[in-house]
């Protein structure tokens, strides 16, 4: 599903040029659950942003479902993204002005789903995430774990083929963290491909495969299952 070859990404500031990704190559097959690990600053988030089509690589190739997308225009990327990819962030990133229901509904709105259908699907996923009773609350009124569940609900409501999670448990205590990992595992079992960045060896155990990075390139790859 994801095929990355010699991917490069630089950040230029006035004095220095940082190499965030250095000739990074790997593949992720459909249905896999991959964890990406590495020390802080090694380029994990950068990688995830590129895979998530939020950012452009500076070199190398990136095939998504067999199509080369590294040269895509913003509009094309947005289009591909909204139909195929769901995001889960460390800091949840819910819109404060929208309720739980409305936050989860957003991706459906952007893909043009009809209101009745939207309602049905949002309720279904909220039910699944056990957050239905909070549907009319605003994010500030929820605990961290609840917020992250809403964020996961939002990421999956569109039935994306790929979920990208950047330290999804980073802001949560261990029980809430486990709950979220459970959710991701279930989703994976239902066929969703997952790429997750994490600092926690514990969380990494939920995945099939761990990619370890250092200074922008892959150092090891270990199969867990």
């Amino acid at each position, binding site marked *: 599903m994801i095929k990355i070859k010699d991917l490069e990404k630089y950040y230029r500031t006035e004095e220095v040029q940082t190499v965030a990704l250095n000739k990074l190559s790997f593949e992720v097959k459909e249905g896999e659950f991959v964890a990406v690990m590495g020390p802080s600053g090694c380029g994990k988030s950068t990688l995830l942003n590129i895979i998530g089509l939020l950012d452009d690589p500076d070199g190398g190739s990136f095939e998504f479902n067999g199509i080369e997308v590294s040269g895509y225009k913003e509009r094309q990327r*947005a289009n591909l993204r*909204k139909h195929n990819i769901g995001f889960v962030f460390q*800091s949840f*990133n819910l819109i404060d002005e*929208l309720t739980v229901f409305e936050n989860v509904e957003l991706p459906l709105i952007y893909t043009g789903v009809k209101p009745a259908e939207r309602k049905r699907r949002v309720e279904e996923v909220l039910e699944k995430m056990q957050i239905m009773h909070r549907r009319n609350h605003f994010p500030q009124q929820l605990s961290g774990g609840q917020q992250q569940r809403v964020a996961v609900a939002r990421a999956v409501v*569109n039935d994306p083929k790929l979920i990208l999670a950047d330290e999804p448990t980073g802001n949560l205590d261990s029980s809430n963290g486990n709950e979220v990992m459970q959710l991701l595992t279930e989703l994976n079992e239902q066929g969703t491909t997952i790429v997750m960045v994490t600092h926690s060896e514990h969380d990494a155990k939920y995945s099939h495969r761990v990619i370890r990075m250092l200074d922008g390139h892959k150092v090891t790859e270990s199969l867990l299952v």
Partner: protein
Amino acid sequence: MIRNYFKIAWRNLRKNKIYSFINIFGLAIGMAVTIIIGLWVHDELNYNHYFKNRDKIAQVFQTQTFNGNKGTGSAIPRPLEMAMREQHSDKFKHIVMSSWNQPSYLEYKDINISKNGNSMQEGAIDMLGLKILKGVKDGISDRYSIMLSASTAKALFGDEEPIGKIIKANSQYDLKVTAVYEDIPVNNSFSDLDFVKPWDLYANSMDWVKRSIDSWGNNSFQLFVQMNDDQTLDDLNKQIERIKLDAPGAEDTKQYNPVMFLHPMDDWHLRSEFKNGVKTGGRIEYVWLFGIIGLFVLLLACINFMNLSTARSEKRAKEVGIRKSVGSSREQLIRQFLGESLFVVVIAWVLAIIIVLASLDGFNKLASKAIEFPWTNPSFWLASIAFVIITAVLSGSYPALYLSSFNPVEVLKGTFKAGKLAHLPRKVLVVTQFTVSIALIIGTIIILKQIQHTKNRPIGYSKEGLIQIPVMSQDFLGKQDIMRNAFLSSGAAIAMSTSSSPTTNVWSNRSGFLWEGKPDGFQEDLAWVEVSPEYVSSLGLKVVEGRDFSREFPTDSNAVLLNKTAVKYMGLNDPVGKLIRSDDDGEDEPMKVIGVVEDVIMQSPYEPVKQTIFVFDRHGNASYYNLRLNPDRSVSQNLETIEQVFKEHFPNLPFSYQFVDEEYAQKFAAEERIASLASVFTVLAILISCLGLFGLASFVAEQRTKEIGVRKVLGADITNLWMLLSKDFLTLVAISLLIASPLAYFFMQNWITKFTYKTNISWWIFLMAGMGAILITMITVSFQSLKAATANPVKSLRTE
């Protein structure tokens, strides 16, 4: 999707109350100002729209040259009519001679009222398209007939049938009422046409009018025309240009090189100023001026919107990032933010309409207009929709483009600062805003100063406690001595004189004189006022050479006084005793200069005093009684007594009078109206700018809450912090001042050239405007700065 946007917009508005208030209220004021100005401009541009033939109606104007100076006016000689009819009747549907609009007493049974109207030829009715409510369409074909406006008929006859009734005009003629026409609405020429009398009656009543039938030199009448539909103004102008110059019998006037032309009705109201024979504009300049001010005020309000929206961008950055990460395209975000701005603009527009409705009456008073809210005018609503959309796009597009351009990666990572990129445009906007405000302040001060400067000119007589009574009807002929004695002995007046023009105007100009030392080919043009011997003393004129008129000297019936300007103008070295003759070698005795008086402002206070000759009135040519009220009694007492005396002698005539100082003040009305409108708009512009500044300051303070907290912990005191937060804004205002000053100077310097008596544009105006702007900025910004600076640092540090 729309509903979702709407929800976010609404919740955002509610969450940030101050911001929403500033944004909506500021925008509403800006829009209200623009709407009101729009209504005013519309009203001005629709002047004379009552006349459906307006694009074919014109008045014949004349440009003549005196000593190289071209003067243009509407007064034309009587023979012009016949010349036009003989040579060009095939090109005109109507050629209509007319008198000036003059008051007339109209008497029916025991009702006697004074009304204004013209004596006109028959074509006038069809040309103006008067709507006949009762009676016949050709109501002035008979010499002894009269047509009345509906309100005049009502005043005279009440509910009685007016048609066929006989009324007495000026106690002289019995006229039969033949028709009643609909009042011509205000905002049209001829709106004071209370009646129309036959030209024929006018032309055959007074001797001087009769005599003028073949006098090309007597420019005392008006001529209106309606062109045939196939004629164009330019063509006709070419054809009639030389009509007077080439006319047999007009040889005497050749030296003034008379050029005739048509002044179209569409230009009467807005483009009626002529300089050196060329149309230079007129009121249209004010239409432009206010139109531009209106747009500027709207721009200021839009700038607030843009500024506040971008200032809030950091708060909304996260939303943009999230939306992008869940699949929103940039176009969708642009649409969202434009939609939000449309939403706010619509709310502001509703509020603006409410403000307009609430302030229209006051505005009408200020502008002396009768503008109504155009509820039923579809084009108003269409224009409103266009206006709302344009405003929404204007104010929303920058924030929309800016906000939607955020990079989601940076935003979500939290490293995003709406720093550098947003700051420059925001600064430019604030500078623009304050440049406009400061320029308006400077402009308004200069207009006010010019008016004050003109008001401070010495007018040469004492206008307080002076009234004038119009006495232009036959009834008053030969009564002036009786009346003077009666008024004086009543104790209500301490002096009375008569004059052929009111104190505040000159109705007659003469040329054709000879005097010793007159330069060859000199074409004099003298203001001519016939006065009774008490004129100088009753008005308080100052005799600077020679002596005043006196009843003691029988020879004074040929005496004249000159004003100082006339002495200089005529080149008289030793004026007293000089003789002035008429050059048509008539048998009249020459006039003798017995004295010189100080210049008196009778006409425009903005222009130099005209060379004037005050002539001993031996024909009883009085148009006004000038009465100096008794200062020892109250004004109302005096007026009551004067009315009684008047009624004793003229029981059938209505008594009317004017205070001379009020008449004089009228001369400033137009400019004062402009000044008060400009002041109001300036205050509103400043208010809008300050609202914006206030909002911006509060956001900056909010953004820097953490920084302020840290600085306080490190030992900064309130003054340091206040300086820190206010400095930036003060710098911007200072830059605005630097831009606005030369701009305002340039425009006002230009405006002020139209006045001969100019005030000087002194440096203190700029200083004052600058200090004012800085003071206002400090107050506005300090409120927020101090609030932030005095906040508890522990609390503000916790907000992160």
